[in-house]
């Protein structure tokens, strides 16, 4: 690929106690691309994702985002960067149970300093785009799994992040619901130009990506360019 990668992990090592989770893992993410991280359970996919997102700090190695070394930033700088540049979708549990779905989507904008009115207006538009306007006033616990994931996608994209990190975003859904979530997610990410790092063990979900990287034993084995 001709362009500089937006996000790079170089030679990451990370152990939890005596368990090595990453063993010289390297990967590149380019702006606007959808990269699937595949590989067996326990191979280090989630750990790699968390390092790329600056949630975990590797024991050694470097994570670079837009020319900045994430591992060298202070904690508060790193969280500020995460809030403004990154979005997150996990398998479940990322929505605040006490807030309505609409307020959940508006929350990242409020944290970024937007007015309540503007945040809610924008959140409404995102819920509509993900086809879940009908749960706007419900709490996440009152929405179905598929609806909850769409709300989570809306929340991840509402700040127009440069990178969305998704860890098994459809893991708890049946295939029809999972596919719809992926369709809407991928279309919205492409529209906003966000890159997506997508952890999945389901090939049909990985088929929504542009490329795949396969993680095995804490290392990235293959990365194919097919564009």
């Amino acid at each position, binding site marked *: 690929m001709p362009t500089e990668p937006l996000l790079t992990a170089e030679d990451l090592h990370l152990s939890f106690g005596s368990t090595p989770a990453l063993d010289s893992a390297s990967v590149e993410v380019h702006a606007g691309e959808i990269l699937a991280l595949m590989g*067996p359970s326990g191979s280090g996919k989630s750990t790699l994702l968390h390092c790329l997102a600056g949630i975990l700090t590797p024991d050694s190695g470097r994570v670079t985002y837009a020319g900045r070394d994430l591992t060298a930033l202070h904690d508060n700088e790193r969280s500020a960067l995460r809030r403004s540049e990154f979005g997150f979708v996990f398998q479940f549990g990322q929505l605040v149970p006490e807030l309505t779905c609409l307020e959940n989507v508006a929350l990242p904008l409020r944290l970024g300093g937007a007015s309540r009115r503007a945040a809610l207006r924008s959140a409404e538009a995102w819920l509509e785009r993900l086809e879940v306007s009908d749960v706007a006033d419900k709490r996440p616990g009152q929405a179905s799994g598929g609806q909850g994931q769409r709300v989570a996608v809306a929340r991840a994209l509402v700040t127009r992040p440069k990178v969305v990190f998704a860890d098994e975003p459809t893991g708890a859904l049946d295939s029809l619901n999972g596919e719809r979530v992926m*369709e809407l997610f991928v279309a919205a990410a492409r529209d906003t130009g966000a890159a997506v790092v997508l952890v999945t*063990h*389901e*090939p*049909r979900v*990985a*088929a*929504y*990506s*542009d490329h*795949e990287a*396969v993680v*095995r034993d804490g290392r990235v*084995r*293959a990365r*194919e360019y*097919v564009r």
Partner: protein
Amino acid sequence: MSIGHALLGLLEGGPRHGYDLKRSYDERFGQDRPLAYGQVYSTLARLLKNGLVEVESEPGAGPERKKYAITDAGVSDVGGWLARPEKPEPYLQSTLYTKVVLALLTGHDANDVLDTQRSAHLRLMRDLTRRKAGGDLADQLICDHALFHLEADLRWLELTAARLQQLAAQVRA
């Protein structure tokens, strides 16, 4: 795929010319593999010989001027075909398995074989996924059928990757 049965089934809607039948087959089932005219006429000739269709003659010569109609025997033949299950394909003679074993025997990296195959499978799955997104319900169902089969292959690849050391020990023993 039994083209004869498919053509017969299409004729249940009413008599048709051969070229009309071909077009209708291609629209519904042809997708990547439209029928050749020769195939249509040879199939119709066989059905005619077996009494499953009859020709409604029209003035003029040539097979393309003939209109074909399904007979009662043809109708019950379609019924019988629909009622019989298709033989599940066991795929026991897998080229992939053979390649993996031979890679291990000849000292090649079997992981490379698996990785290369995975990426080829995923590439096709991406194409099908894209086609599905732009297609109607028929496209979606046809693509999904292919996608689920490819996914099954990929699951096998992952399982084999996880058992490669074990397999290597057995193969080389």
